[in-house]
């Protein structure tokens, strides 16, 4: 079945440093979605990318969808303590029903 891996699994940064998480799918995706889960909370949708090579920005967050539509990245510029949490990518799988498959997640900790 489809597998979606993310690296790194954990990242500790000092406040103000940049952060990037990478997402790689074993199959081509029709779209890629990104979610953020705060500690103790539930995943919340951030953004969806659909087109090959697409780049979208949300304030300090930059999302990119690879040309082959099998990988994606999330980059945070000048991290803040409010960025703490686990970031997941997700994409529709193959086969009947096209269920959403979540990546393994990257846990971000930001220290003052």
């Amino acid at each position: 079945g489809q597998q979606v891996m993310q690296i790194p699994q954990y990242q500790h940064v000092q406040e103000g440093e940049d952060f990037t998480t990478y997402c790689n799918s074993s199959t081509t995706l029709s779209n890629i979605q990104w979610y953020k889960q705060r500690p103790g909370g539930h995943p919340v949708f951030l953004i969806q990318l659909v087109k090959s090579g697409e780049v979208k920005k949300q304030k300090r967050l930059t999302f990119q969808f690879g040309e082959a539509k099998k990988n994606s990245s999330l980059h945070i510029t000048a991290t803040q303590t409010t960025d703490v949490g686990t970031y997941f990518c997700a994409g529709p799988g193959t086969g009947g029903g096209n269920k959403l498959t979540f990546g393994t997640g990257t846990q971000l900790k930001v220290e003052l």
Partner: protein
Amino acid sequence: EADIYQTPRYLVIGTGKKITLECSQTMGHDKMYWYQQDPGMELHLIHYSYGVNSTEKGDLSSESTVSRIRTEHFPLTLESARPSHTSQYLCASSGFQNTEAFFGQGTRLTVV
């Protein structure tokens, strides 16, 4: 704001008891999911439904069962709870075209 609800939020129960975790959504979504997650860790899909009377087991083997008799309702049942079932259970739903998934607040289950 997402209209997907899970009850109970917290549950402590003895070994061998039968439990049902409730999940309801009012968005008319076809697809619904159950995930098992330890704090800050990967989301493990345990059950999936893409419509009424359709359910599939997910990637993580689970002793739980689900039913989808109505579009809005997707309960999860454990016939005999064990300490190994202690975890957080998250319910989610999404539209047929794989737009964003909405998550419930989760149920934190502790089996003693």
